[in-house]
């Protein structure tokens, strides 16, 4: 088996486990997500608990990763972004836009994709628009780069 194929199988498993975690944590219910953001109303802590649980596990995994010369199925750690403080204003604006859309619908990218199975028309409308948004930004970046060279 080629290493690309094995890496894809790991990605498949990670995607499935991730979606199940989102469901178990109540994150596929937009009302729970919006409840966390609704600090002036009836505040719901579920999203915070999900984040704490995930961060604990991942922080431990990260300690393990720091002691490994390379990932189990790759030659080095070069595909892992380096932690840092660089975060230009355009990226901050992006985070603002994302937050506003997240609050409006109660969906961020993970739950939007994991909820497609529900066949709910609102989910499909949201996720399709989100994918269009991904592509629009890719086109914008490409134009910027081609102008720059």
């Amino acid at each position, binding site marked *: 088996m080629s290493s*690309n194929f094995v890496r894809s199988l790991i990605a498949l498993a990670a*995607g*499935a486990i991730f*979606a*199940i*975690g*989102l*469901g178990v*944590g*109540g994150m*596929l*219910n*937009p*009302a729970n997500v919006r409840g966390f*953001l609704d600090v*002036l*109303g009836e505040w719901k802590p*579920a999203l915070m*608990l999900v*984040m*704490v*649980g*995930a*961060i604990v*596990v991942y922080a431990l*995994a990260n300690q393990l990763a720091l002691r490994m010369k390379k990932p189990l199925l*790759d030659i080095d750690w070069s*595909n892992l972004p380096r*932690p840092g*403080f660089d975060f230009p204003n355009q*990226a*901050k*604006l*992006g985070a*603002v836009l*994302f*937050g*506003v*859309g*997240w*609050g*409006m*619908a*109660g969906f*961020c*990218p*993970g739950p*939007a*994709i*994991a*909820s497609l*199975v529900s066949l*709910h028309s609102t989910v499909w409308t*949201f996720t399709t*628009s989100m994918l*269009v*948004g*991904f592509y629009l*930004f*890719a086109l914008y970046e490409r134009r910027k780069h081609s102008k720059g060279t």
Partner: protein
Amino acid sequence: MMMAFYGGLIIGLAAALLMLFNGRIMGVSGIAGTFINMLFTPNARTAQSGEFYWRGFFLFGMILGGILLSKFTNTFVEAAMVTSNPAVIIAAGLLVGVGTRMGWGCTSGHGICGIARFSGRSVIATMVFIAAGMVAVAIANALLNVSGAGQ
């Protein structure tokens, strides 16, 4: 409430798998955004097919996870949509799509992976998008109250 914490542990495990085996960050906006971009860019897709396929498999895995949830739980039956106004939903989707790519990540990449790796930019990003979301919800609720009072 404990279920939320357990759900988080499971999500952390998924992200840990992708990091320890493949050396990748489990950021959904980055994975899906790059996948969509490669889907419509045949040159990039053939030049780096491995880059294209693992992302496709991850997204397919998320769909499989959703199928398992719909078979064995009532996750999707309980889900209550916040709004079904199509204009609001489309605008929200576009904002999330453009915003997460422009902001270098979303709740999974920044909010979980980045924070757990003590990345300063992810801490900033997470505080910014949570604050913006809180303001958006407060304004939306206020508008809803005004329109409700007018009826």
